[in-house]
């Protein structure tokens, strides 16, 4: 596949690996913001190819991981209604709410469906006029235009039996929160390339200046990651701050103006709670007042019950990069991918799930070598 295969080329990867080694003279901590990047790092064993001085911290960029427990519970309550067809991206289905997950709702007879695109929900709504089709609109800025489009189009076409449960998050405020935390150890960022295709990287420039960090707009293929790490390390070694964009084949400084307009038409910025981290100011989107008819939260009010996170789970500290998964007492024992206590163990790119699989080899490997 063009634009994928060439970015998995072993020879070019070796060139970059050498360049990274040559450029590195002391320890550096970089955070890859996006869960998709964590996925690539684990899938291709990229961390194992880096010099030992470079530590990668896995960022909070997994919408599945950071959706608040209250919202998951709300989704579960709505999905269990007989008059609702509840649609979601596949990976939200396994995230534990306070009592169960969406897969369990499905097992008990709820009509829960996996969709590929939010626009598919409009089609479903037209096919089932007697029921309300609710879409679980989660995601970062990347997904916001598609979700906005589904709402905008539903209103324009008068598809009254469709609604969305919005749980949208924005990246720059989260990066600000991470950099402002007293325990922060992140020295540079690999910015989430696909968020930047939509939003551009203008908003990162003041961030880089304020916190004196390098930010590299990074794609998702192995070569993209290696290139991002290389440029990040170079900037750190040379003491440069600012934003560099090696993912220019997909990202411009302004982003996608049409997509940004669409987001702005449907959503407005709001404070948002991040699972495990807490409320971050201006870090989310909610529907604008003129689209409130499509707000599933208003259409199906759920009495919010006080919820309690599993007390042992330290997903919050992990998502901020303060702690590593292995520092959690529940890790690998009471918390596994089959029975996760927290969302970072659920998503295939959640930091804990990645470590669970990855560390297994390391432990066994060192034992064999010993």
């Amino acid at each position, binding site marked *: 596949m063009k634009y994928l295969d060439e970015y998995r080329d072993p020879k070019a*990867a070796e060139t970059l690996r050498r360049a990274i080694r040559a450029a590195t003279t002391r320890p550096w901590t970089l955070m890859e913001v996006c869960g998709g990047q964590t996925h690539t790092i684990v899938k291709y064993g990229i961390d194992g190819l880096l010099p030992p001085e470079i530590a990668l911290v896995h960022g909070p960029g997994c919408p599945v991981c950071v959706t608040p427990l209250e919202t998951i519970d709300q989704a579960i309550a709505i999905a269990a209604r007989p008059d609702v067809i509840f649609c979601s991206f596949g990976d939200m289905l396994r995230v534990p709410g306070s009592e169960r997950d969406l897969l369990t709702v499905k097992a008990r007879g709820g009509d829960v469906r996996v969709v590929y695109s939010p626009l598919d929900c409009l089609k479903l709504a037209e096919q089932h006029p007697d029921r309300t089709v609710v879409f679980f609109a989660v995601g970062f800025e990347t997904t916001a235009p598609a979700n906005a489009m589904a709402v905008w189009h539903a209103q324009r076409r008068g598809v009254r039996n469709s609604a969305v449960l919005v749980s949208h998050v924005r990246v720059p405020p989260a990066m600000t929160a991470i950099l402002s935390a007293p325990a922060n150890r992140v020295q540079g960022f690999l910015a989430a390339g696909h968020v930047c295709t939509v939003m551009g990287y203008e908003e990162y420039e003041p961030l880089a200046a304020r916190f004196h960090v390098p930010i590299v707009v990074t794609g998702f293929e192995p070569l993209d990651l290696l290139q991002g790490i290389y440029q990040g390390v170079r900037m750190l070694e040379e003491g440069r701050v600012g934003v560099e964009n090696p993912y220019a084949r997909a990202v411009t400084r302004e982003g996608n103006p049409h997509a940004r307009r669409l987001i702005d038409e449907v959503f407005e910025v709001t404070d948002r709670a991040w699972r495990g981290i807490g409320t971050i100011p201006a870090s989310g989107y909610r529907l604008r007042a003129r689209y409130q008819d499509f707000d599933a939260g208003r259409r199906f009010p759920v009495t919010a019950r006080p919820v309690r996170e599993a007390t042992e789970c330290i997903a919050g500290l992990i998502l901020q990069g303060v702690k590593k998964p292995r520092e959690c007492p529940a890790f690998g024992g009471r918390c596994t991918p089959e029975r996760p206590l927290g969302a970072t163990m659920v998503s295939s790119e959640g930091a804990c799930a990645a470590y669970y699989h990855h560390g297994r080899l390391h432990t066994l490997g060192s034992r064999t070598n010993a």
Partner: protein
Amino acid sequence: MPDTPNMDGWQCPTPPAAPEQVLLGHGSGGRLSAALLRNLFIPAFRDLGLNAEEDQASLSLPCAEPNSLRLALTTDSYVVRPIFFPGGDIGRLAVNGTINDLAVGGARPIALAAAFILEEGLALSDLQRVVASMRDACKQAGINLVTGDTKVVDRGKGDQLYITTTGFGIAPPGVSLSVRNPRPGDRVLVSGTIGDHGIAIMSVREGIEFETVLESDTAPLYDLVVAMLEACPTLRWMRDPTRGGLSSALNELATTAHVGVQLTEAALPIRTEVQAACEMLGLDPLYVANEGKLVAVAPADDAGRLLAAMRGHPLGRKAALVGEVVADHAGVVTLRSLIGGERVVPMLAGEQLPRIC
């Protein structure tokens, strides 16, 4: 490795609390399925002779001479939605799947029994189509279908049609394809492209359907097995990597035989379309089901001959040498990635779901 995970506490995890209900993941062929077997079925039937390590059981007749022919017995239920899919249907799958479970044990399939659970309201024409397809599949594989059963459940209590097939075969003396056979240094081969069946099913599933039709690879493999055993009598082990994909079959091997398995990503045969579909849905082809492929392990010296024999058979044209059995990291399957990094290929946890991330 930077910031090396030190997982001293990990080695003896507290077993995860058991879920209170059966989840879909229990049927995915991954870790939940394995837990169900280990915690529920094996304790109940162990002393009654349950063999959960292989896809089939082998029995000797009470009156037979030692080292003579043995009977092979296997059974499998088929639940698939939609019941007709590109390249096959539930009936063809039920015949081929059970034949393959016998074949990977080296047994010649002799006869099948089929039990049907029908949902009230199923169109008789659909049942007719499925039955005709099973007949064709039996003819093609040269196997008889000699007994069966039919039950009907209330509308809404079943998904159109479920089929259970039980297969009976004869295993020649002296052939041992136990999962405990493989040794470090052995080679791992697959008989063709992986993930075709699972992606074919997904490509027509509501919500994620593609414009392009991808066909299931469902096929009876006994003929290929004969060619393989002829070319390579030292063949150690075979399995048809159905649900849970190649990863589950190899993880079972690694766990049961206490060996490591090392795969080479660049060597894995994957159709461009299947790879593309996996990229789009965020799936890993190593976990996607196959219905007409097998994975085999053979001594290194014989692997070349075996590969040639596989490629010489119409069902093995895309066969490839994909990895090695190693002494390191016993119980764990690893993969050397395209760019040279290494990762663990764990057993599937729960169901594989399309992801956005």
